[in-house]
């Protein structure tokens, strides 16, 4: 072995890694093929809808969406008319704004409350802490349908029925147990020494929370933001019950379900309507997805 000169050794090593790479490639290929296949069959229907939403009503009725690929650069077969129609004539535009008006506060409020609560449950000492945390998490098992009737009664008493505030509070209440649970698990796993160090440095609980916990919890908060945002945006039931379908308060999901009833034959409008409701969740997901994989904690402790 000692007679090997440096260049020979390099060759031997690179051959070794090439072989290893090849083995890794072989091992991974079945996995990758399976993944690609799954992604393909999951995406296909959505993609079909997407293509259809840009075709004219006549074309949709007479030929399959895949026929456009015969000559994809024939721009006469593409049209934005469906979107114009659905946003103006079918009031999807107003519904979109209403949905935003419901979803943004109904996401921000529970996360704000949950982050404070999660910090307190994880790092503040007070009597009954574990019991209270247990109760909050226990609420996860309560089906939200069970709460509708008692809540509607209360809402009627205090005049919250059919208001945005009412639906914000409802979503906040339904979202909090999971939010507290998820954020607590993350915040409790932050290194104890960091929080102790802050307390020696002179940070109050509030400073510790705002200056350390919040920035360090961005991945967890972003992850939960996605969950809550998608859930509220796609929710139909809670909105129907607490907001109703009045013209000024209808949200996209309610509007879409109405359209399925009233314009069930008009595929061109429904496909466009579906994509109007989908566009924002897609943006939110792709905008925040890097927080799912990002390791913000790297470098805080140990070497």
């Amino acid at each position, binding site marked *: 072995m000692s007679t090997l000169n440096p260049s020979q050794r390099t060759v031997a090593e690179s051959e070794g890694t090439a072989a290893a790479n090849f083995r890794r490639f072989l091992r991974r290929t079945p996995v990758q093929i399976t993944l690609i296949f799954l992604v393909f069959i999951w995406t296909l229907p959505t993609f079909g809808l997407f293509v259809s939403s840009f075709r004219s009503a006549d074309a949709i009725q007479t030929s399959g969406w895949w026929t456009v690929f015969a000559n994809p650069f024939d721009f006469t077969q593409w049209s934005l008319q469906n979107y114009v129609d659905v946003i103006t004539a079918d009031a999807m535009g107003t519904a979109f704004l209403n949905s935003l008006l419901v979803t943004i506060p109904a996401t921000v409020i529970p996360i704000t409350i949950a982050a404070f609560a999660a910090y307190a449950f994880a790092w503040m000492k007070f009597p009954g802490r574990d019991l209270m945390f247990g109760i909050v998490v226990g609420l996860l098992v309560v089906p939200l349908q069970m709460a509708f009737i008692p809540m509607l009664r209360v809402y009627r008493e205090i005049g919250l029925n059919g208001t945005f505030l009412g639906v914000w509070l409802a979503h906040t209440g339904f979202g909090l147990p999971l939010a507290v649970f998820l954020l607590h698990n993350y915040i409790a796993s932050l290194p104890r*020494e*960091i929080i102790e160090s*802050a*307390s*020696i440095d002179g940070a109050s609980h509030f400073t510790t929370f705002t200056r350390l916990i919040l920035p360090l919890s961005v991945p967890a908060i972003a992850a939960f933001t996605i969950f809550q945002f998608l859930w509220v945006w796609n929710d139909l039931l809670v909105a129907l019950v607490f907001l109703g379908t009045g013209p000024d308060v209808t949200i996209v999901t309610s509007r879409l379900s109405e359209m399925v009833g009233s314009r069930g034959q008009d595929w061109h409008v429904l496909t466009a309507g579906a994509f109007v409701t989908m566009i924002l969740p897609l943006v939110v997901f792709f905008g925040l997805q890097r927080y799912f994989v990002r390791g913000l904690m790297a470098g*805080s402790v140990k*070497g």
Partner: protein
Amino acid sequence: MASVTYDHVTKRWGDVVAVNDLNIEIYDKEFLVFVGPSGCGKSTSLRMLAGLEEVSDGDIIIGDRRVNDVPPKDRDIAMVFQSYALYPHMTVYDNMAFGLRLRKTPKDTIDGRVREAARDLGIEHLLERKPKALSGGQRQRVAVGRAIVREPAVFLMDEPLSNLDAKLRVEARALIQRLHQRLETTFIYVTHDQVEAMTMGSRIAVLRDGILQQIDTPQNLYDYPLNVFVGGFIGSPSMNFFDATLVSQDGELLVDTGAFILPVPQAKKDVWSQETGRRIVLGIRPEDIHDPEYVPPGVNPSPVEAVVDVTELMGNEVFLYLKSGNHDFIARVDPRTSAAVGNSMSMAFNLDNLHLFDAETERAIR
């Protein structure tokens, strides 16, 4: 710039007593090291002083103020953690300035102190980096820097070097000692490494099972261990122990281990003769057992026949694992030794450095 006093301090978690009736007076500007095996209560003692753990009983006094109920931030202390506990989303500069900003220190003062500390620690060029872009040694320096800029009355360090590799550890040891000399502040340092304790401490407190075993200067701890535990804990390789009895014969006082007999030197005779006939533990450090051919001057040797079991060459010295009767022991001898495995040798025990402990209480007989 403050003294620290533990006055009958006890820490209990349910039925578990982590620290039991600890009484220590730490002088101003002293470098006190808490040392002991894991679970001995040394970290808990430090954390109580920092205010991170509540005191179950007794008082902790910093300067002339009882601090039991004072929150950590008002105790005028700074702490370096084993894991460094840097704030991962802040730059090195912000990490160091964090505590000062919270105290509303003027901006100029903060900047001056941070830059001065960074210069002292050789991390000036890293100020704009985030912790994750630093090596272990650099992170450790930042953690120390964060403590320095606060200019506290007492520095607390909880095993700050145990995450460093051996070479960095030696450098960091020297760095902390230099800091202590320059800052002239009280340092309290926790470690499980007796080498760190011996090299750094102006005094060392040895703890075991929550009980203070002995507190003294490193030299006194080494020369006069108060009990078997301290004798065995301080020094590497650790002290050899032999079950033995003290016997009196023809006006001589002898230590009889069953395998060999050692005469007690004149100076110790008066004290030890009171224990005649009792079961005792004889302790002798490996460095007090010499190769018969290379006995240094000033040693009062007595021969003990032994067989060499294993030899370990360290370069500047040789460790001999020896067997005499049913006793095993280690000798640390001159590297020129001709000892080989299987050899029978007449080892020279230095009688001036024998340690005798009571077999029941394990306390030193003085």
